[in-house]
């Protein structure tokens, strides 16, 4: 057990629901479509979270429930068939269709698994229909990806072959880079989930060793384990040290000689430390408060403390999976306050009382805190930016030092006097 102090809090929350994951999942798998079965609120949420990415015809949409759908569920099923049919006629390039459950569809108990089964029978392999829930009553923000990946697992072909499976969405260039380094370590077969094409699913079996790239894949990890895979325990690959431990854990699982690991990673680490130095200077000693949102909070706190010298006031997480988080928790400094759940008002009271130098929070809270004179960093940016791996450590640090740098550049006092 590490040094962290784990507490729970309940009350009003300020977090996205799992539907938000669609915003990056649809970009990862361009041949997949995400159809939310929900309300106008769901449609409005995704488009608001997606913001400016409105230019292309999106590969996600919402089948909006209307009054008559609520009146008779049989009709709702027929209606859904019709909507799917229209959609697939318009988008014949779609190979995988995810039916995504929402709060209203869960509450009125539309059985999307049954719908998916019926539609699969109807389309006979032309398109694969899957389902998962991104509802706010069951999932937060990044948990939606967990649901989507879990839905893909049963379709993965069986194989005994030894391979490394990277699980969790990464930016493509970062993924290429990580694969490149693993190849240099001598790991021959490396695959990814989610794949870049939804129909190009990796195989799975007792030879598969899974390295999670993201900390929010609890259910996916469990079903991969059920299919015989081994889950490699490691801190998450944020920061140079975290990424080193993450790669070393994989190397160890593949019985790779320590000397080779060292000679491969050491130059990268030296370079990363050098690149981190200017940000470390900026961030060192600065006080950080992380509000719960993306589940990346614990590994981020570990990186920002251990590698950038920040002081951690509080780490909020929407929920805590001890098993997956333990390696990161162990690396946190003693008595770091980790709060699972949220009472947003009380938490903001604590933010104000502690006057941190930087707060990591959601977009709804950022400007109000800035207006109170507290610098912020949007957590949503962290799920869109290439931040994983040793080579990205300085970019990750830069994301956090930018708001502080900006504050130094703009002289608030003199502006306020104008």
């Amino acid at each position, binding site marked *: 057990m590490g040094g962290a102090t784990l507490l729970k809090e309940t009350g009003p929350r300020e977090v996205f629901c799992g539907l938000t994951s669609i915003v990056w999942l649809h970009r990862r798998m361009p041949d997949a479509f995400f159809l939310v079965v929900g309300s106008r609120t769901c449609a409005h949420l995704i488009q608001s979270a997606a913001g400016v990415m409105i230019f292309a015809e999106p590969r996600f949409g919402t089948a909006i429930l209307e009054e008559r759908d609520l009146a008779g569920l049989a009709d709702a099923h027929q209606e859904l068939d019709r909507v799917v049919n229209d959609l697939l006629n318009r988008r014949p390039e779609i190979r995988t269709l995810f039916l995504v459950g929402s709060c209203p569809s869960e509450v009125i108990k539309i059985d999307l698994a049954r719908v998916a089964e019926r539609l699969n029978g109807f389309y006979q392999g032309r398109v694969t229909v899957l389902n998962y829930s991104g*509802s706010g009553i069951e999932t937060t923000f990044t948990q939606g990806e967990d649901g989507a990946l879990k839905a893909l697992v049963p379709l993965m072909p069986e194989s005994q072959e030894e391979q490394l499976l990277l699980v969790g969405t990464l930016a493509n260039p970062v993924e290429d880079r990580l694969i490149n380094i693993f190849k240099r370590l001598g790991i021959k077969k490396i695959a990814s989930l989610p794949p870049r094409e939804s129909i190009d699913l990796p195989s799975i079996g007792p030879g598969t060793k899974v390295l999670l790239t993201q900390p929010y894949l609890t259910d996916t990890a469990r079903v991969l384990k059920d299919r015989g895979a081994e889950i490699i325990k490691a801190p998450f690959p944020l920061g140079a040290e975290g990424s080193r431990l993450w790669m070393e854990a994989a190397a160890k699982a593949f019985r790779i000689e320590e000397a080779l690991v060292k000679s491969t990673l050491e130059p990268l680490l030296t370079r990363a430390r050098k690149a981190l130095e200017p940000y470390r200077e900026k961030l060192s000693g600065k006080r950080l408060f992380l509000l719960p949102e993306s589940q990346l909070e614990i590994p981020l706190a570990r990186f920002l403390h251990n590698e950038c010298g920040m002081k951690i006031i509080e780490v909020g997480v929407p929920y805590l999976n001890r098993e997956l988080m333990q390696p990161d928790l162990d690396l946190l400094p003693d008595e770091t306050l980790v709060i699972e759940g949220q009472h947003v008002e009380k938490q903001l009271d604590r933010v104000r009382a502690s006057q941190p130098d930087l707060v990591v929070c959601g977009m*709804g809270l950022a400007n109000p805190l800035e207006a109170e004179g507290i610098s912020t960093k949007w957590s949503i940016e962290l799920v869109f930016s290439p931040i994983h791996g040793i080579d990205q450590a300085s970019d990750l640090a830069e994301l956090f030092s930018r708001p502080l740098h900006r504050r130094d550049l703009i002289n608030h006092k003199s502006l306020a006097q104008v």
Partner: protein
Amino acid sequence: MELTLWTYEGPPHIGAMRIASSMEGVHYVLHAPQGDTYADLLFTMIERRGRRPPVTYTTFQARDLGGDTAELVKGHIREAVERFQPEALLVGESCTAELIQDQPGSLALGMGFNLPIVSLELPAYSKKENWGASETFYQLVRGLLKDEIPEDKNHNPQNWKGQGRRPRVNLLGPSLLGFRCRDDVLEVQKLLGENGIDVNVIAPLGSSPADLIRLPKADINVCLYPEISESTCLWLERNFGMPFSKTIPIGVGATHDFLNELHQLLGMPSYQPKELGTQSRLTWYSQSVDSNYLTGKRVFIFGDGTHAIAAARIAKEELGFEVVGLGTYSREMARKVRGFAKELGLEALISNDYLEVEEAMAKSSPELVLGTQMERHSAKRLGIPCAVISTPMHVQDVPARYSPQMGWEGANVIFDSWVHPLMMGLEEHLIGMFRHDFEFVDGHQSHLGHLGGHQSETNKTTEEPSSNTAKTAVSELDPIWTPDGKEELSKIPFFVRGKIRNKTEKYARQIGCRKIDSETLYDAKAHFKA
């Protein structure tokens, strides 16, 4: 069931939030699952508000559903009242809570608070955002004024004459996330002031429940945004006998008509317009010879009802455009828009589906699109210039500068913001036309780089020979990109790629490296960072 990719309006509880957030002293307890808090970012990001919306979300989860959600709601209401001490409380539910039927409004009314509580019923599966805003504003005004309704409905809008004061009016409808409401309110106040009319209350934007109680003290109501305030104006007319104005002062003609209407309603001497063109520059700018270019430009218009109708009138009567399409997403305004379209010899497009709108847009082959953010994106795809005239909007539609749509200055803003994209379109067209001229051939130098350009004039004698020799020398030493390096480079976004390429080559030269692979690229990146 309706397939929606992008939606023009949010659900009705977003409308209620717009009213609560526009006001002071109002708090809204919203029974809603976690996730619905995304709505805060509409206000803090699009409007750049430095304050959280005054909303407490109950953020219930699946595990709460097995237990007593009613108690959960009451707990949140109690805490919100204690913490925020509102003057009035709104209580309602979002789409999911509507299905659970906890009746949060009734629960709140039964808790014995000594403050006005308005229970909102906003059917999420049949109504939308603007309706929700309108209903919330109406319910709030009704809730605060229902005990003040006079027996005698003989409200006289000319009372000001006998009371030795200037006439005064309420400006109803401006709200957050409305199109340019912040500046419209200032412009209309200025306009009224110049005409000797005072403003009693502006609501909901910037008002408090106490201000709403003062509404009947005005002589008439000005309904600025019918989408939000028409139902309230109708109720005040029915119950307090207060008439309200129907003209929306967007455009020179409409502003003129608006002042006329107000003068008549208030029994003022008839409005004496100043010489045409002295109040808004739009009139002269449109008349000036430069604007011949605008004649008969085909324009497609889509937006909320108010802004779409206003735009069509300006386009036709004030800029000499040809309106080739007119429509709205707002069902509540469908009748008005249909009527106006008929006058233009068009059939109005009433639709929620942005793809249907895009199709109609493409079919009518316009030269300018006036629409919402959706139409801006569609127009971009079709390569047609576009100006945004209505919500839904993005952060760039909430400009820092003063940019109303209403009144004389509003007409100036409209002239600029519609004509500018047309001119940019013309510029692009010209570039296309001259594309094959030798000046436009790829690799051809700009005037700055030409021999004879003013910069090279001074430099050519001294620097040219040396730079020639330097060039050959450099090309021998230039590092070569390996396929691996090139591939890595190609992954860098195009807009920074050139910079990264140069820096990497500079770094390679510095360290005497002849072959640039992916490692060199990362080395260079780290080198320049440090």
